[in-house]
Protein backbone atom coordinates (compact mmCIF):
# COMPACT_ATOMS: atom_id res chain seq x y z
CA UNK A 1 0.00 0.00 0.00
CA UNK A 2 1.19 3.49 -0.82
CA UNK A 3 0.40 6.43 1.38
CA UNK A 4 -0.47 9.60 -0.52
CA UNK A 5 1.22 12.35 1.43
CA UNK A 6 -1.12 15.03 0.14
CA UNK A 7 -4.21 13.03 1.09
CA UNK A 8 -2.71 12.35 4.50
CA UNK A 9 -2.22 16.09 4.97
CA UNK A 10 -5.86 16.76 4.18
CA UNK A 11 -6.89 13.98 6.60
CA UNK A 12 -4.75 15.51 9.30
CA UNK A 13 -6.41 18.87 8.76
CA UNK A 14 -9.79 17.21 9.27
CA UNK A 15 -8.55 15.59 12.47
CA UNK A 16 -7.33 19.00 13.61
CA UNK A 17 -10.79 20.48 13.05
CA UNK A 18 -12.36 17.59 14.95
CA UNK A 19 -9.97 18.26 17.81
CA UNK A 20 -10.91 21.94 17.62
CA UNK A 21 -14.54 20.95 18.12
CA UNK A 22 -13.56 18.74 21.04
CA UNK A 23 -11.65 21.63 22.59
CA UNK A 24 -14.65 23.90 22.13
CA UNK A 25 -16.96 21.35 23.77
CA UNK A 26 -14.57 20.93 26.70
CA UNK A 27 -14.27 24.69 27.08
CA UNK A 28 -18.07 24.97 27.28
CA UNK A 29 -18.34 22.08 29.74
CA UNK A 30 -15.51 23.13 32.05
CA UNK A 31 -15.43 26.89 31.71
CA UNK A 32 -11.67 26.53 31.16
CA UNK A 33 -10.23 27.82 27.92
CA UNK A 34 -8.68 24.97 25.91
CA UNK A 35 -6.95 25.13 22.58
CA UNK A 36 -5.46 22.58 20.20
CA UNK A 37 -1.68 22.84 20.20
CA UNK A 38 -0.79 20.18 17.67
CA UNK A 39 -2.38 17.42 15.65
CA UNK A 40 -0.35 14.70 14.04
CA UNK A 41 -0.82 11.35 12.37
CA UNK A 42 1.28 8.46 13.57
CA UNK A 43 2.41 6.25 10.78
CA UNK A 44 2.99 2.86 12.26
CA UNK A 45 1.91 -0.74 12.07
CA UNK A 46 -0.70 -2.11 14.43
CA UNK A 47 2.14 -3.71 16.37
CA UNK A 48 3.86 -0.34 16.85
CA UNK A 49 0.61 1.22 18.02
CA UNK A 50 0.04 -1.63 20.47
CA UNK A 51 3.51 -1.04 21.85
CA UNK A 52 2.89 2.70 22.09
CA UNK A 53 -0.26 2.11 24.15
CA UNK A 54 1.26 -0.59 26.36
CA UNK A 55 0.86 0.20 30.04
CA UNK A 56 -1.52 3.08 29.39
CA UNK A 57 -5.09 3.23 30.59
CA UNK A 58 -7.53 5.02 28.34
CA UNK A 59 -11.03 6.31 28.82
CA UNK A 60 -13.19 7.30 25.91
CA UNK A 61 -15.95 6.54 23.49
CA UNK A 62 -16.25 4.58 20.30
CA UNK A 63 -18.82 4.87 17.54
CA UNK A 64 -19.70 2.66 14.63
CA UNK A 65 -19.71 4.27 11.20
CA UNK A 66 -21.98 3.64 8.22
CA UNK A 67 -22.31 5.31 4.85
CA UNK A 68 -19.43 7.26 3.33
CA UNK A 69 -17.04 5.83 5.87
CA UNK A 70 -17.60 2.41 7.43
CA UNK A 71 -15.91 0.96 10.46
CA UNK A 72 -15.21 2.37 13.87
CA UNK A 73 -13.84 5.58 15.30
CA UNK A 74 -12.49 5.96 18.80
CA UNK A 75 -11.77 9.00 20.89
CA UNK A 76 -9.66 8.30 23.93
CA UNK A 77 -8.18 10.31 26.77
CA UNK A 78 -5.25 9.13 28.81
CA UNK A 79 -6.72 8.00 32.14
CA UNK A 80 -4.06 10.02 33.98
CA UNK A 81 -5.49 13.21 32.58
CA UNK A 82 -9.15 12.37 32.90
CA UNK A 83 -9.18 13.07 36.64
CA UNK A 84 -7.63 16.50 36.16
CA UNK A 85 -10.11 17.19 33.40
CA UNK A 86 -13.10 15.97 35.38
CA UNK A 87 -12.10 18.03 38.39
CA UNK A 88 -12.85 21.09 36.28
CA UNK A 89 -16.45 20.02 35.71
CA UNK A 90 -19.22 21.52 37.82
CA UNK A 91 -20.51 18.08 38.89
CA UNK A 92 -17.03 16.81 39.74
CA UNK A 93 -16.05 13.22 39.02
CA UNK A 94 -19.65 11.99 39.25
CA UNK A 95 -20.11 13.73 35.92
CA UNK A 96 -17.23 11.71 34.50
CA UNK A 97 -18.92 9.06 32.46
CA UNK A 98 -21.60 11.25 30.95
CA UNK A 99 -19.18 14.12 30.37
CA UNK A 100 -16.65 11.91 28.62
CA UNK A 101 -19.43 10.43 26.50
CA UNK A 102 -20.75 13.86 25.63
CA UNK A 103 -17.36 15.29 24.77
CA UNK A 104 -16.43 12.22 22.78
CA UNK A 105 -19.66 12.35 20.87
CA UNK A 106 -19.23 16.03 20.00
CA UNK A 107 -15.60 15.59 19.04
CA UNK A 108 -16.19 12.55 16.85
CA UNK A 109 -19.22 14.29 15.32
CA UNK A 110 -17.08 17.26 14.37
CA UNK A 111 -14.37 14.98 13.08
CA UNK A 112 -16.79 13.02 10.89
CA UNK A 113 -18.58 16.14 9.70
CA UNK A 114 -15.34 17.18 8.05
CA UNK A 115 -14.91 13.75 6.52
CA UNK A 116 -18.41 13.80 5.08
CA UNK A 117 -17.63 17.11 3.39
CA UNK A 118 -14.35 15.81 2.09
CA UNK A 119 -15.87 12.59 0.73
CA UNK A 120 -19.05 14.24 -0.50
CA UNK A 121 -21.05 11.46 1.19
CA UNK A 122 -23.06 11.33 4.40
CA UNK A 123 -21.62 9.37 7.32
CA UNK A 124 -23.92 7.93 9.97
CA UNK A 125 -22.62 7.23 13.42
CA UNK A 126 -24.12 4.91 16.02
CA UNK A 127 -24.70 6.24 19.56
CA UNK A 128 -21.39 6.54 21.45
CA UNK A 129 -20.25 3.62 23.60
CA UNK A 130 -18.28 4.58 26.72
CA UNK A 131 -15.23 2.46 27.53
CA UNK A 132 -12.33 2.13 29.90
CA UNK A 133 -9.50 0.14 28.35
CA UNK A 134 -6.04 -1.10 29.25
CA UNK A 135 -3.21 -0.78 26.74
CA UNK A 136 -3.91 -1.64 23.15
CA UNK A 137 -7.51 -2.67 23.91
CA UNK A 138 -8.37 0.95 23.11
CA UNK A 139 -7.60 0.31 19.46
CA UNK A 140 -10.41 -0.62 17.09
CA UNK A 141 -10.66 -4.32 16.31
CA UNK A 142 -9.13 -4.01 12.88
CA UNK A 143 -6.19 -1.93 14.03
CA UNK A 144 -3.86 -4.65 15.15
CA UNK A 145 -4.21 -6.79 12.08
CA UNK A 146 -2.65 -6.26 8.68
CA UNK A 147 -1.90 -2.70 7.77
CA UNK A 148 -2.92 -1.20 11.09
CA UNK A 149 -4.57 2.18 11.46
CA UNK A 150 -3.54 5.77 11.33
CA UNK A 151 -3.67 7.30 14.75
CA UNK A 152 -4.47 10.99 14.90
CA UNK A 153 -3.29 12.53 18.13
CA UNK A 154 -4.10 16.07 19.19
CA UNK A 155 -2.60 17.79 22.18
CA UNK A 156 -4.91 20.17 23.97
CA UNK A 157 -3.64 22.82 26.28
CA UNK A 158 -5.52 24.83 28.90
CA UNK A 159 -4.45 28.43 28.48
CA UNK A 160 -5.12 29.51 32.04
CA UNK A 161 -4.39 26.39 34.09
CA UNK A 162 -1.62 23.85 34.09
CA UNK A 163 -3.42 21.12 32.19
CA UNK A 164 -2.50 19.56 28.91
CA UNK A 165 -3.51 16.23 27.50
CA UNK A 166 -3.96 14.33 24.29
CA UNK A 167 -6.98 12.96 22.53
CA UNK A 168 -6.77 10.19 19.98
CA UNK A 169 -8.89 9.43 16.99
CA UNK A 170 -8.62 6.13 15.23
CA UNK A 171 -10.76 5.86 12.14
CA UNK A 172 -10.71 2.23 11.14
CA UNK A 173 -12.26 1.49 7.83
CA UNK A 174 -11.38 0.29 4.37
CA UNK A 175 -12.61 3.54 2.83
CA UNK A 176 -10.37 5.55 5.12
CA UNK A 177 -7.37 3.48 4.09
CA UNK A 178 -8.33 3.91 0.43
CA UNK A 179 -8.37 7.64 1.01
CA UNK A 180 -4.92 7.91 2.56
CA UNK A 181 -3.43 5.69 -0.09
CA UNK A 182 -4.93 8.00 -2.70
CA UNK A 183 -7.22 5.30 -4.15
CA UNK A 184 -10.29 7.42 -3.56
CA UNK A 185 -10.50 10.73 -5.32
CA UNK A 186 -12.15 13.04 -2.82
CA UNK A 187 -15.21 15.07 -3.75
CA UNK A 188 -14.44 18.64 -4.71
CA UNK A 189 -14.85 19.99 -1.21
CA UNK A 190 -13.87 23.63 -0.95
CA UNK A 191 -10.59 24.03 0.82
CA UNK A 192 -9.83 20.32 0.75
CA UNK A 193 -7.85 20.51 -2.43
CA UNK A 194 -4.21 21.14 -1.95
CA UNK A 195 -4.46 21.34 1.79
CA UNK A 196 -1.40 19.17 2.11
CA UNK A 197 0.33 21.75 0.03
CA UNK A 198 2.45 19.45 -2.06
CA UNK A 199 1.77 20.61 -5.53
CA UNK A 200 5.20 19.86 -6.89
CA UNK A 201 5.78 17.49 -9.75
CA UNK A 202 7.58 15.01 -7.49
CA UNK A 203 5.79 11.91 -6.37
CA UNK A 204 4.23 12.28 -2.96
CA UNK A 205 3.10 8.68 -2.55
CA UNK A 206 5.29 6.66 -0.25
CA UNK A 207 5.18 2.90 0.26
CA UNK A 208 3.56 2.16 3.60
CA UNK A 209 5.98 -0.70 4.31
CA UNK A 210 8.94 1.64 3.80
CA UNK A 211 7.45 4.12 6.24
CA UNK A 212 7.14 1.35 8.74
CA UNK A 213 10.78 0.36 8.14
CA UNK A 214 11.81 3.99 8.54
CA UNK A 215 9.89 4.22 11.83
CA UNK A 216 11.87 1.20 13.09
CA UNK A 217 15.07 2.80 11.85
CA UNK A 218 14.22 5.98 13.76
CA UNK A 219 13.58 3.92 16.86
CA UNK A 220 16.99 2.26 16.55
CA UNK A 221 18.52 5.71 15.99
CA UNK A 222 16.96 6.95 19.24
CA UNK A 223 18.40 3.93 21.06
CA UNK A 224 21.84 4.62 19.56
CA UNK A 225 21.65 8.28 20.62
CA UNK A 226 20.70 7.17 24.15
CA UNK A 227 23.60 4.71 24.23
CA UNK A 228 25.95 7.49 23.22
CA UNK A 229 24.72 9.66 26.10
CA UNK A 230 25.44 6.73 28.42
CA UNK A 231 28.92 6.41 26.92
CA UNK A 232 29.71 10.12 27.34
CA UNK A 233 28.25 10.59 30.81
CA UNK A 234 28.47 7.15 32.40
CA UNK A 235 24.76 7.44 33.27
CA UNK A 236 22.09 4.87 32.49
CA UNK A 237 19.76 6.08 29.76
CA UNK A 238 16.51 4.96 28.24
CA UNK A 239 14.32 5.98 25.32
CA UNK A 240 10.95 6.99 26.68
CA UNK A 241 9.15 7.64 23.39
CA UNK A 242 10.18 7.39 19.78
CA UNK A 243 7.65 8.21 17.11
CA UNK A 244 7.46 8.92 13.43
CA UNK A 245 4.56 11.28 12.87
CA UNK A 246 3.13 13.32 10.07
CA UNK A 247 2.36 16.84 11.27
CA UNK A 248 1.76 20.38 10.02
CA UNK A 249 5.26 21.87 10.32
CA UNK A 250 3.88 25.10 11.74
CA UNK A 251 2.70 23.12 14.79
CA UNK A 252 6.16 21.79 15.68
CA UNK A 253 7.36 24.89 17.60
CA UNK A 254 4.25 24.81 19.82
CA UNK A 255 5.04 21.21 20.62
CA UNK A 256 8.48 22.14 21.90
CA UNK A 257 6.80 24.72 24.12
CA UNK A 258 7.76 28.08 25.59
CA UNK A 259 9.99 26.87 28.41
CA UNK A 260 13.65 27.86 28.03
CA UNK A 261 15.69 25.10 26.41
CA UNK A 262 19.36 24.54 25.68
CA UNK A 263 20.93 22.12 23.25
CA UNK A 264 22.26 21.77 19.76
CA UNK A 265 20.94 21.82 16.21
CA UNK A 266 22.42 20.21 13.12
CA UNK A 267 21.87 20.33 9.42
CA UNK A 268 21.64 16.92 7.77
CA UNK A 269 23.20 16.65 4.34
CA UNK A 270 22.53 13.88 1.85
CA UNK A 271 19.25 12.22 1.00
CA UNK A 272 17.18 12.97 2.93
CA UNK A 273 18.61 16.31 3.99
CA UNK A 274 16.98 18.19 6.80
CA UNK A 275 17.57 19.23 10.39
CA UNK A 276 18.00 17.62 13.75
CA UNK A 277 17.57 19.35 17.08
CA UNK A 278 18.50 18.00 20.51
CA UNK A 279 16.83 20.07 23.20
CA UNK A 280 17.01 19.90 26.98
CA UNK A 281 15.02 22.00 29.39
CA UNK A 282 17.49 24.36 31.10
CA UNK A 283 17.83 22.42 34.32
CA UNK A 284 18.38 19.13 32.49
CA UNK A 285 20.92 20.77 30.19
CA UNK A 286 22.91 22.09 33.13
CA UNK A 287 22.81 18.75 34.93
CA UNK A 288 23.88 16.69 31.94
CA UNK A 289 26.66 19.16 31.07
CA UNK A 290 27.92 19.09 34.67
CA UNK A 291 28.00 15.30 34.56
CA UNK A 292 30.49 15.51 31.68
CA UNK A 293 32.76 18.14 33.23
CA UNK A 294 35.61 17.37 35.64
CA UNK A 295 34.50 20.12 38.02
CA UNK A 296 31.38 22.18 38.66
CA UNK A 297 31.28 24.97 36.01
CA UNK A 298 31.14 28.62 37.16
CA UNK A 299 27.97 29.19 35.19
CA UNK A 300 25.42 26.37 34.80
CA UNK A 301 25.11 27.00 31.05
CA UNK A 302 28.28 28.96 30.30
CA UNK A 303 31.06 28.24 27.82
CA UNK A 304 32.18 24.97 29.40
CA UNK A 305 28.65 23.59 29.46
CA UNK A 306 28.14 24.77 25.89
CA UNK A 307 31.21 22.81 24.75
CA UNK A 308 30.05 19.73 26.63
CA UNK A 309 26.56 19.93 25.12
CA UNK A 310 28.03 20.39 21.62
CA UNK A 311 30.21 17.34 22.04
CA UNK A 312 27.29 15.34 23.39
CA UNK A 313 25.08 16.53 20.51
CA UNK A 314 27.69 15.47 18.02
CA UNK A 315 27.87 11.88 19.18
CA UNK A 316 24.09 11.67 19.67
CA UNK A 317 23.46 12.85 16.13
CA UNK A 318 26.03 10.47 14.68
CA UNK A 319 24.33 7.66 16.58
CA UNK A 320 20.88 8.80 15.52
CA UNK A 321 21.57 8.80 11.80
CA UNK A 322 23.90 5.82 11.94
CA UNK A 323 22.23 3.12 9.93
CA UNK A 324 20.14 5.49 7.80
CA UNK A 325 22.72 5.50 5.05
CA UNK A 326 22.98 1.72 4.98
CA UNK A 327 19.27 1.05 5.07
CA UNK A 328 18.29 3.87 2.70
CA UNK A 329 21.25 3.28 0.42
CA UNK A 330 22.38 6.93 0.57
CA UNK A 331 25.10 8.90 2.21
CA UNK A 332 24.03 11.20 5.05
CA UNK A 333 26.34 13.47 7.00
CA UNK A 334 25.72 16.21 9.53
CA UNK A 335 27.04 19.72 10.07
CA UNK A 336 29.01 20.70 13.17
CA UNK A 337 26.74 21.42 16.15
CA UNK A 338 25.25 24.86 16.68
CA UNK A 339 24.52 25.65 20.32
CA UNK A 340 21.09 27.06 21.14
CA UNK A 341 19.77 28.44 24.41
CA UNK A 342 16.44 30.22 24.25
CA UNK A 343 12.66 29.78 24.37
CA UNK A 344 12.15 26.18 23.14
CA UNK A 345 9.83 27.04 20.28
CA UNK A 346 12.07 29.91 19.17
CA UNK A 347 15.06 27.57 18.81
CA UNK A 348 13.24 25.27 16.42
CA UNK A 349 11.16 27.76 14.44
CA UNK A 350 14.03 28.78 12.11
CA UNK A 351 14.49 25.11 11.14
CA UNK A 352 10.78 24.76 10.51
CA UNK A 353 10.81 27.99 8.48
CA UNK A 354 13.61 26.72 6.29
CA UNK A 355 11.82 23.44 5.51
CA UNK A 356 8.50 25.22 5.08
CA UNK A 357 9.67 26.86 1.89
CA UNK A 358 8.88 23.61 0.13
CA UNK A 359 6.35 21.85 2.32
CA UNK A 360 3.56 22.60 4.79
CA UNK A 361 3.47 19.14 6.33
CA UNK A 362 6.30 16.86 7.22
CA UNK A 363 7.36 13.59 8.73
CA UNK A 364 8.87 14.35 12.09
CA UNK A 365 10.73 11.88 14.25
CA UNK A 366 10.61 12.79 17.87
CA UNK A 367 12.17 10.90 20.70
CA UNK A 368 12.45 11.51 24.43
CA UNK A 369 15.56 10.18 26.14
CA UNK A 370 15.89 10.01 29.91
CA UNK A 371 18.89 9.49 32.13
CA UNK A 372 18.65 7.70 35.45
CA UNK A 373 20.32 9.03 38.56
CA UNK A 374 20.39 12.73 37.75
CA UNK A 375 16.91 12.71 36.19
CA UNK A 376 17.36 14.57 32.96
CA UNK A 377 15.36 14.37 29.81
CA UNK A 378 16.02 15.53 26.29
CA UNK A 379 13.90 15.65 23.17
CA UNK A 380 15.31 14.85 19.77
CA UNK A 381 13.49 16.19 16.72
CA UNK A 382 14.51 15.08 13.24
CA UNK A 383 12.93 17.01 10.37
CA UNK A 384 13.76 15.43 7.01
CA UNK A 385 12.94 17.04 3.69
CA UNK A 386 9.71 15.35 2.64
CA UNK A 387 10.41 14.90 -1.07
CA UNK A 388 13.88 13.56 -0.45
CA UNK A 389 12.57 11.21 2.22
CA UNK A 390 9.86 10.01 -0.19
CA UNK A 391 12.51 9.28 -2.82
CA UNK A 392 14.67 7.42 -0.32
CA UNK A 393 11.67 5.39 0.87
CA UNK A 394 10.76 4.63 -2.71
CA UNK A 395 14.21 3.12 -3.27
CA UNK A 396 13.85 1.17 -0.05
CA UNK A 397 10.78 -0.59 -1.42
CA UNK A 398 12.50 -1.64 -4.63
CA UNK A 399 13.46 -5.27 -4.68
Amino acid at each position, binding site marked *: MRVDVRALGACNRLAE*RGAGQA*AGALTDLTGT*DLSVEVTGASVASGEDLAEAFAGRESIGVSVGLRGGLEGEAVLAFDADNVDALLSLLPGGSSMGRSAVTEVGNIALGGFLDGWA*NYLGKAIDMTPPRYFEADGAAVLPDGALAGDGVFLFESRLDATTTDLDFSIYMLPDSGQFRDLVVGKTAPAAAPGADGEAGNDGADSTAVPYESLSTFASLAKRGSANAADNIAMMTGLDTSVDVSRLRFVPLADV*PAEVGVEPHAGT*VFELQGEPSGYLAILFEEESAAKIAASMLPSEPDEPLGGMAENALCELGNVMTSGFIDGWANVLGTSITHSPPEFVHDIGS*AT*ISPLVAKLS*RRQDYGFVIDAAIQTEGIQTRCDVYALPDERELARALERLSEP
Partner: protein
Amino acid sequence: MSHPPSSRERTHSPAPDAGRIKVGVSDLSVATGGETLTTSGLGSCVAVALVDRSAGVRGLLHAMLPNGTGSDTGIERPGKYVDTGIETLIAELEDAGASAGRLEARVAGGAEMLDLTDAVGPRNVARAEQCLDAAGIPVVERAVGDGVGRTVRFRADGRLVVRAADGFERTL
Protein backbone atom coordinates in the same frame (compact mmCIF):
# COMPACT_ATOMS: atom_id res chain seq x y z
CA MET B 1 -26.76 11.10 13.99
CA SER B 2 -26.03 11.99 10.42
CA HIS B 3 -23.32 14.16 8.98
CA PRO B 4 -24.42 15.21 5.53
CA PRO B 5 -21.89 16.77 3.22
CA SER B 6 -22.27 20.48 2.86
CA SER B 7 -20.53 23.04 0.76
CA ARG B 8 -19.96 25.24 3.77
CA GLU B 9 -16.32 25.22 4.76
CA ARG B 10 -15.59 26.05 8.36
CA THR B 11 -12.48 27.98 9.07
CA HIS B 12 -10.44 27.05 12.07
CA SER B 13 -9.67 29.96 14.36
CA PRO B 14 -8.87 30.19 18.04
CA ALA B 15 -11.91 30.69 20.23
CA PRO B 16 -12.01 34.18 21.66
CA ASP B 17 -12.79 33.76 25.32
CA ALA B 18 -11.24 34.34 28.72
CA GLY B 19 -9.85 37.50 27.18
CA ARG B 20 -7.07 35.79 25.30
CA ILE B 21 -6.63 34.78 21.67
CA LYS B 22 -3.62 32.62 20.87
CA VAL B 23 -2.10 33.16 17.47
CA GLY B 24 -0.09 30.17 16.26
CA VAL B 25 2.82 30.01 13.86
CA SER B 26 1.70 30.92 10.31
CA ASP B 27 -1.50 32.27 11.75
CA LEU B 28 -3.26 35.62 12.16
CA SER B 29 -6.18 36.84 14.20
CA VAL B 30 -8.29 39.97 14.72
CA ALA B 31 -9.76 41.28 17.99
CA THR B 32 -12.56 43.80 18.26
CA GLY B 33 -13.14 43.68 22.02
CA GLY B 34 -10.97 43.61 25.11
CA GLU B 35 -9.15 40.39 24.25
CA THR B 36 -5.38 40.12 24.44
CA LEU B 37 -3.82 38.64 21.32
CA THR B 38 -0.78 36.53 22.14
CA THR B 39 1.87 34.66 20.24
CA SER B 40 4.83 32.83 21.67
CA GLY B 41 8.20 31.52 20.67
CA LEU B 42 9.11 34.06 18.02
CA GLY B 43 12.57 33.14 16.86
CA SER B 44 13.31 34.05 13.28
CA CYS B 45 9.56 34.48 12.76
CA VAL B 46 8.14 37.97 12.84
CA ALA B 47 5.05 39.31 14.62
CA VAL B 48 3.22 42.24 13.07
CA ALA B 49 0.68 43.98 15.32
CA LEU B 50 -1.72 46.43 13.69
CA VAL B 51 -4.21 48.69 15.45
CA ASP B 52 -6.85 51.20 14.44
CA ARG B 53 -7.36 52.93 17.77
CA SER B 54 -10.45 54.90 16.86
CA ALA B 55 -12.25 51.79 15.59
CA GLY B 56 -10.94 49.68 18.49
CA VAL B 57 -9.81 46.96 16.11
CA ARG B 58 -6.49 45.10 16.39
CA GLY B 59 -4.81 42.27 14.55
CA LEU B 60 -1.73 40.11 15.06
CA LEU B 61 0.24 38.07 12.52
CA HIS B 62 2.93 35.45 13.25
CA ALA B 63 4.69 34.85 9.93
CA MET B 64 7.49 32.42 9.23
CA LEU B 65 8.91 33.37 5.82
CA PRO B 66 9.26 36.64 3.88
CA ASN B 67 7.70 35.96 0.48
CA GLY B 68 4.59 34.02 -0.44
CA THR B 69 4.70 35.17 -4.00
CA GLY B 70 6.11 32.42 -6.21
CA SER B 71 6.45 29.98 -3.32
CA ASP B 72 6.33 26.23 -3.83
CA THR B 73 3.60 25.49 -1.37
CA GLY B 74 0.79 27.75 -2.53
CA ILE B 75 -0.98 30.24 -0.34
CA GLU B 76 -3.51 28.19 1.58
CA ARG B 77 -2.07 29.59 4.81
CA PRO B 78 -1.54 33.26 4.04
CA GLY B 79 -0.20 33.85 7.56
CA LYS B 80 2.82 31.71 6.74
CA TYR B 81 4.38 34.56 4.77
CA VAL B 82 5.02 38.16 5.76
CA ASP B 83 3.70 39.65 2.51
CA THR B 84 0.50 37.61 2.11
CA GLY B 85 -0.01 37.68 5.87
CA ILE B 86 0.07 41.48 6.09
CA GLU B 87 -2.22 41.78 3.08
CA THR B 88 -4.74 39.33 4.58
CA LEU B 89 -4.53 40.92 8.03
CA ILE B 90 -5.26 44.37 6.62
CA ALA B 91 -8.25 42.98 4.71
CA GLU B 92 -9.59 41.24 7.83
CA LEU B 93 -9.10 44.38 9.92
CA GLU B 94 -11.04 46.38 7.34
CA ASP B 95 -13.81 43.76 7.39
CA ALA B 96 -13.94 44.25 11.16
CA GLY B 97 -14.38 48.00 10.79
CA ALA B 98 -10.83 49.33 10.71
CA SER B 99 -9.63 51.88 8.20
CA ALA B 100 -6.29 51.11 6.54
CA GLY B 101 -5.41 54.80 6.66
CA ARG B 102 -5.63 54.85 10.47
CA LEU B 103 -3.60 51.68 11.12
CA GLU B 104 -0.30 51.80 12.96
CA ALA B 105 2.16 48.92 13.24
CA ARG B 106 4.43 47.39 15.85
CA VAL B 107 6.90 44.75 14.75
CA ALA B 108 8.69 42.17 16.91
CA GLY B 109 10.86 39.11 16.35
CA GLY B 110 12.99 38.36 13.32
CA ALA B 111 15.94 37.26 15.44
CA GLU B 112 19.04 35.70 13.97
CA MET B 113 18.72 32.51 15.93
CA LEU B 114 21.00 30.22 13.96
CA ASP B 115 23.88 30.43 11.54
CA LEU B 116 22.45 27.35 9.82
CA THR B 117 19.40 29.10 8.46
CA ASP B 118 20.84 32.02 6.48
CA ALA B 119 19.38 35.10 8.14
CA VAL B 120 15.70 34.40 7.57
CA GLY B 121 14.91 36.58 10.62
CA PRO B 122 16.32 39.87 9.27
CA ARG B 123 14.76 39.14 5.87
CA ASN B 124 11.37 38.70 7.54
CA VAL B 125 11.76 42.08 9.25
CA ALA B 126 12.88 43.80 6.05
CA ARG B 127 9.94 42.35 4.15
CA ALA B 128 7.51 43.46 6.89
CA GLU B 129 8.85 47.04 6.79
CA GLN B 130 8.64 47.04 3.00
CA CYS B 131 5.04 45.74 2.88
CA LEU B 132 3.85 48.10 5.62
CA ASP B 133 5.52 51.03 3.89
CA ALA B 134 3.86 50.09 0.60
CA ALA B 135 0.49 49.97 2.39
CA GLY B 136 1.15 53.39 3.93
CA ILE B 137 1.12 52.02 7.49
CA PRO B 138 3.68 53.62 9.84
CA VAL B 139 5.79 51.35 12.04
CA VAL B 140 5.66 53.18 15.36
CA GLU B 141 7.73 50.76 17.44
CA ARG B 142 9.89 47.70 16.90
CA ALA B 143 11.76 45.08 18.92
CA VAL B 144 13.56 43.10 16.26
CA GLY B 145 16.79 41.30 15.43
CA ASP B 146 19.50 40.15 17.82
CA GLY B 147 19.75 36.48 18.69
CA VAL B 148 16.93 36.27 21.17
CA GLY B 149 13.54 34.56 21.17
CA ARG B 150 10.48 36.61 22.10
CA THR B 151 6.87 36.20 23.22
CA VAL B 152 4.35 38.99 22.64
CA ARG B 153 1.02 40.13 24.06
CA PHE B 154 -1.03 42.65 22.12
CA ARG B 155 -3.17 44.41 24.70
CA ALA B 156 -6.58 46.00 24.27
CA ASP B 157 -4.99 49.45 24.65
CA GLY B 158 -3.02 48.85 21.44
CA ARG B 159 0.33 48.41 23.20
CA LEU B 160 2.53 45.43 22.43
CA VAL B 161 4.29 43.77 25.38
CA VAL B 162 7.43 41.97 24.22
CA ARG B 163 9.07 39.49 26.58
CA ALA B 164 12.51 38.15 25.70
CA ALA B 165 13.83 34.69 26.56
CA ASP B 166 15.81 36.13 29.49
CA GLY B 167 12.61 37.50 31.00
CA PHE B 168 13.30 41.13 30.02
CA GLU B 169 10.03 42.82 29.12
CA ARG B 170 9.38 45.94 27.04
CA THR B 171 6.09 47.63 26.22
CA LEU B 172 5.98 49.09 22.73
